[in-house]
């Protein structure tokens, strides 16, 4: 077999006119010229591979960076923040010496191409981010969005995604405790598969992705490197799908959760013995990313011998090895005298580990192959000094018209009978229906610390068995709200996740986000993005919950049609004693139902407007962050002092959706009375923010009312937990069995 001469640095310098396939690798012409300018010569093939993946939208955040800065600039003062944006994941102090790391990421495009593997490796990637911080992963959550529930392709994508998330997460032994499933035609062809993970460690165990100390060894461990996922980051994640282009199947990675489980245990054991100076997982852009980021964040340079990388396929070229996104690999920097022990631990867990290089005195990243130097770059130019775009953005011409199309003008139910029919239709609609067909495919018991899991308002995990210290996480996003008003839509996503955490009794501490948008090359999409980021940063500042990290997914668009702007927000909270948690389910008959907050006629973007009228227009509900904060304080105090036995936040679907869920979960009905000043329709379907329904034991009523009164939170008695039906007095009665059939039958009928 003959090969063209190795494209070494020397060779590149001597052959300046060789044409390289920069366009095929996803680089724009000016970006390629910038690489040539940085290097003072044409790049070698290997260097081009590295720059192209690292400068892709997915890795470099080149279109979003200028906006994301606000998360840092507007970050509220928070004593809880231990590690902020820029590391593999943010780290938050939750007290008692514990630190929690969490993050949400997207794996949207791969999951459309190959639903099972795309979703599975999404879980794998986020979990490695958590391990790389030094933490033991303790839970995962999965916010998912698909096309119309009855579209034939949804039946291809959704079961594969769900099986992939379950197949990977279940095998890792991570309880899946939360997330969302949303259907909307706008996600047809662009499903959103976001994956979040939480990890727990002691403060002193925090690890960072940096290579320092000349002479320290760089160890690659985990799976062998194969041909899967080559160019995944640059090609799949950063370009719009187009029918005319050839199939992209080979660029999706294939996961092996068993290997990752071994990687978790092996890494944690190495951490316990303090063997690791710096660590980085191999995800998007594989070795290119790991080596350049480790070297760039550290004090010295790095020299790597690519021949030492264990391969699954011996015919891989050095460029392919650098770009491969083979899963279940990590890279550790270890002091020379600790290398043997590190390798021993890897052997114990049957994990392949190889020294592939070392930290050097210089400031260059040098990579060798067959004795020739094929990469010689300043790692910062690869990892951190990629292009930054000030993409033009403009409020779309159609925005005014959309907002003027007020949902308040839609015909409302004229009779009690019609109202009742619409309630049944709402709670049985795909978005509002029970998702247990999906969540029952995820293990939520493993590790034996799950206090709350979906369909609770937030997932909750105990982290200390002695003290009962726990953490809660909720993820929320509403693309319909954000389409109507991206600034407030993003704030509403935060408000909902914040409220969901507080509803279970936990104190919201910090935020991670996954920002899913269309093509940044479309000024209208860029405006949506800029507005959403500004809205989220402003709201985080006001609520005192800093953004600790996250992920941006752009190009979620097929042809001209972009998805709804979909910022998904995860809020992490802490609870001193999980015994005080508040569940959604009604607990006891006779308990009094209180509606907290104010209800206005707000139907823009509502579930009702979608389900009954297939309408999207007007303005989303108003945001009042001070009210959200007050509501959260009340919910947390009430939980701590035992004043409420169940609570449910009000969001999409309004009060009726919340009450139906609490009733069905608890197997207990309720009698509701429409409060003075509200009509039954608004009472049941309005989606005003800053509200929750709580069940108060009669013995606590006075105390609870006094607290709400003293702190100025409107609390309206709206009924009582009672019987086996839902009775809205003067309007209609629905038996729990009717409601259950409507609520629980939909998803299996569509998908099973």
């Amino acid at each position, binding site marked *: 077999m003959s090969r063209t001469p190795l494209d070494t640095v020397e060779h590149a310098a001597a052959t300046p006119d060789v044409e390289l396939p920069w366009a095929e690798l996803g680089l724009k012409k000016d970006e390629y010229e910038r690489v040539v300018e940085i290097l003072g010569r044409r790049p070698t093939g290997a260097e081009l591979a590295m720059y192209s993946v690292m400068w892709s939208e997915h890795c470099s955040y080149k279109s979003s960076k200028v906006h994301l800065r606000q998360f840092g600039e507007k970050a509220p003062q928070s004593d809880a923040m231990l590690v902020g944006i820029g590391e593999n994941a943010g780290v938050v102090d939750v007290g008692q010496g514990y630190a929690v790391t969490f993050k949400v990421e997207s794996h949207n495009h791969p999951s459309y191409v190959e639903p099972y593997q795309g979703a599975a490796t999404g879980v794998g990637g986020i979990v490695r981010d958590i391990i790389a911080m030094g933490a033991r992963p303790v839970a995962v959550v999965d916010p998912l969005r698909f096309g119309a529930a009855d579209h034939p392709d949804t039946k291809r994508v959704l079961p594969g995604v769900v099986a992939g998330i379950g197949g990977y997460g279940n095998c890792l032994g991570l309880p899946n405790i939360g997330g969302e499933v949303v259907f909307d035609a706008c996600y047809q062809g662009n499903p959103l598969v976001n994956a979040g993970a939480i990890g727990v460690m002691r403060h002193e165990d925090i690890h960072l992705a940096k290579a320092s100390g000349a002479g320290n060894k760089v160890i690659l461990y985990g799976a062998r490197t194969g041909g899967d996922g080559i160019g995944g980051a640059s090609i799949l994640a950063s370009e719009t799908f187009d029918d005319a282009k050839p199939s992209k199947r080979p660029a999706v990675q294939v996961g092996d959760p068993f290997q990752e489980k071994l990687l978790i245990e092996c890494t944690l054991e190495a951490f316990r013995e303090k063997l690791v100076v710096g660590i980085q997982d191999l995800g998007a852009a594989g070795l290119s990313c790991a080596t350049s980021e480790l070297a760039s964040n550290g004090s010295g340079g790095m020299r790597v011998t690519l021949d030492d990388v264990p391969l699954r396929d011996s015919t891989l070229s050095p460029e392919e090895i650098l770009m491969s996104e083979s899963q279940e690999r990590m890279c550790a920097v270890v002091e020379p005298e600790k290398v043997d022990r590190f390798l021993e631990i890897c052997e114990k867990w*049957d994990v392949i580990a190889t020294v592939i290089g070392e930290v050097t005195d210089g400031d260059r990243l040098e990579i060798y192959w067959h004795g020739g130097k094929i990469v010689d770059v300043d790692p910062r130019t690869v990892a951190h000094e990629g292009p930054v775009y000030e993409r033009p953005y403009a409020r779309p011409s159609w925005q005014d018209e959309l907002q003027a199309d007020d949902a308040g003008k839609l015909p409302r139910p004229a009779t009690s009978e019609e109202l009742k029919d619409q309630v049944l239709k709402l709670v049985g609609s795909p978005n509002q229906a029970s998702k247990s067909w999906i969540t*029952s495919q995820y293990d939520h018991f493993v590790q*034996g610390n*799950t206090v709350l899991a979906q369909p609770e308002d937030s997932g909750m995990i105990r982290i200390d068995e002695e003290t009962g210290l726990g953490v809660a996480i909720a993820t929320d996003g509403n693309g319909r709200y954000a389409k109507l008003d991206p600034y407030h839509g993003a704030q509403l996503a935060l408000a909902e996740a914040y409220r969901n955490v507080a509803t279970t009794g936990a104190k919201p501490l910090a935020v991670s986000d996954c920002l899913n948008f269309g093509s940044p090359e479309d000024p209208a999409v860029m405006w949506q993005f800029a507005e959403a980021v500004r809205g989220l940063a402003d709201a985080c500042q006001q609520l005192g919950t800093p953004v600790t990290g996250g992920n941006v997914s752009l190009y979620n668009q097929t042809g001209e049609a972009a998805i709804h702007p979909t910022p998904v927000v995860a809020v992490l909270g802490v609870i001193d004693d999980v015994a005080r948690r508040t569940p959604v389910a009604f607990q006891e008959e006779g308990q009094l139902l209180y509606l907290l907050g104010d209800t206005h006629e707000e139907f823009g973007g509502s579930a009702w407007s979608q389900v009954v009228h297939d309408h999207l227009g007007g303005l989303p509900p108003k945001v009042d962050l001070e009210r959200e904060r007050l509501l959260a304080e009340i919910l947390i105090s009430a939980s701590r002092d035992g004043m409420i036995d169940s609570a449910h936040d009000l969001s999409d679907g309004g009060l009726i959706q919340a009450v139906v869920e609490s009733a069905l979960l608890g197997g207990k009905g309720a009698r509701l009375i429409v409060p003075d000043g509200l009509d039954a329709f608004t009472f049941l379907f309005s989606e005003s923010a800053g509200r929750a329904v709580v069940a108060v034991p009669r013995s606590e009523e006075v105390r609870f009312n006094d607290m709400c009164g003293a702190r100025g939170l409107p609390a309206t008695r709206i009924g009582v937990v009672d019987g086996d039906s839902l009775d809205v007095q003067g309007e209609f009665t629905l038996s729990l069995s009717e409601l259950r059939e409507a609520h629980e039958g939909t998803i299996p009928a569509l998908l099973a």
Partner: protein
Amino acid sequence: MTARIGVVTFPGSLDDRDTQRAIRLAGAEPVALWHKDKDLKQVDAVVLCGGFSYGDYLRAGAIARFSPVMEPLLEQAKAGLPVLGICNGFQILTEAHLLPGTMLRNDHLHFICRDQKLRVENAETAWTTDYTAGQEIHIPLKNNDGQYVADERTLDELEAEGRVAFRYLDFNPNGSQRDIAGVTNAAGNVVGLMPHPEHAVEPLIGTGRTDGLPFFTSILKKLVNA
């Protein structure tokens, strides 16, 4: 005095720490055993916990069954050492022929995780004396390959000898023959089941029930009184 109960960790075991916690909560002393161990560290009983040993490659339990630790375990189990196999542990016990039958993929082809109602059919095994025969309990179930199958003659024998230890009630979650959720060997010292008693030992955690704790208190009492 208390009893020392071993929990084997294979590569891919997931519920080893949970099982150790359940043993501790019952008042016994958990002892970590490693799949490469050639002896059982003189434990009084062993639990093979749930998970995906060796990634379920080849067949669930098929590779773990050949681990070094299985040699002394087989020998001592035949001599009366109490052994409990939960989920993947049950699969390993059938692969090792300590228990009859085998598990196929769930008939609906999905992983299933739910709070499962069971009836305790045999309350005289080493692991079930703290239940009463016929008692109905709720225990979490979570598996991909939980469909219990055996030939008709074996099933008839199991029924006749009272060796069906647990049966699914109200809903058969995986297509198991005769609703079988767990079985015991003839001597009653080796028991295997698909549901996870170690996930039902604390009132706040998981489903909020403690219906699984008697597994661990049963064995403790037996060992301490022996």
